């Protein structure tokens, strides 16, 4: 059985321990919010996703079984699925309003990498294909190991590496003002 550092906390939530609930919110909310913010690029939507993720944690803590997947992996998958629901809805709205190709070319204000604001980096991230973005978020911002990130994404490590490399290449090109 895999060793899950969150197992005791999840057991506490399942038995209705308010202290366990507080501790899991303190530990996981910043991580879940970060994933959602980077995936969606929208603070309000990211907060909604974080809240919905925790609703599912409250509901399913009792049925979560140690050994199938780490709790952190499961929580990330839930948050990412909620992000994808919102991205799909956005795409449906976009398609309904005006068909448009995703532009992966350089950003209008692309230039020297030295002169890069956080806002521009966020815009560049948003221009990536969602799976590439997801891989970069998990490995770089969540500091997950390649195995954990691949497990969250339900892919093999090779596929994760390919997504990371393509994502980084595209980001570099967009930020540097090169054509992809």
């Amino acid at each position: 059985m895999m060793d899950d550092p969150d197992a005791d906390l999840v057991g506490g939530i399942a038995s209705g321990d308010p202290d366990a609930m507080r501790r899991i919110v303190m530990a996981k909310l910043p991580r879940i919010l970060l994933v959602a913010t980077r995936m969606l690029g929208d603070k309000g939507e990211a907060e909604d996703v974080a809240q919905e993720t925790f609703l599912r944690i409250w509901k399913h803590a009792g049925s979560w079984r140690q050994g199938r997947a780490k709790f952190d992996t499961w929580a990330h998958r839930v948050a990412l699925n909620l992000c994808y629901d919102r991205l799909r809805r956005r795409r449906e709205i976009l398609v309904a309003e005006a068909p448009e190709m995703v532009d992966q070319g350089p950003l209008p204000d692309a230039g020297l990498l030295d002169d890069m604001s956080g806002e521009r980096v966020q815009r560049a991230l948003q221009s990536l294909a969602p799976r590439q973005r997801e891989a970069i978020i998990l490995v770089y911002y969540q500091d997950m190991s390649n195995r954990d990130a691949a497990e969250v994404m339900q892919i093999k490590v090779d596929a994760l590496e390919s997504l990371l490399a393509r994502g980084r290449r595209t980001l570099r090109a967009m930020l540097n003002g090169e054509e992809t």
Partner: protein
Amino acid sequence: MTEKKAAPVDRETFRALVDAYGSSPHRWPEAIRDPAVSFMETEEGRALAADAAQLDAILFRLQPPVPPAGLAAGILADGETWRTRRQRFRRWAISAGLVGIGLAGGLTGAVAVAVITPPPALSINGTMTAFGELQFDSELTQETP
């Protein structure tokens, strides 16, 4: 590059490694980390790592979002609502279970009594009752001294 064996790292492998994982050895797969760190000390390795480090630094210009105070409170309030609802449901389920057990017990008892108790043996002449055989007035008269 996947964690299969710690083969010596050449330029192409190192390039593929930093292309995917960036320049920080702590992100590199454990199985390849040591030979890759050795390669990074070469001139080619330094150049490739420096190039990847540039993008790493840019990625970390993004500040992590700070959860607003109200968000954690709202999440905990949801959790409290859910906890209360679940406790109420458990109490209800226990009460319903007890009532169910009581009803099932009563029913089982009734069935058991019906099965165990032998039916009254009635005579085929139709004069037997649960209290004994019916006697006719003429028989009663004969028995009287």
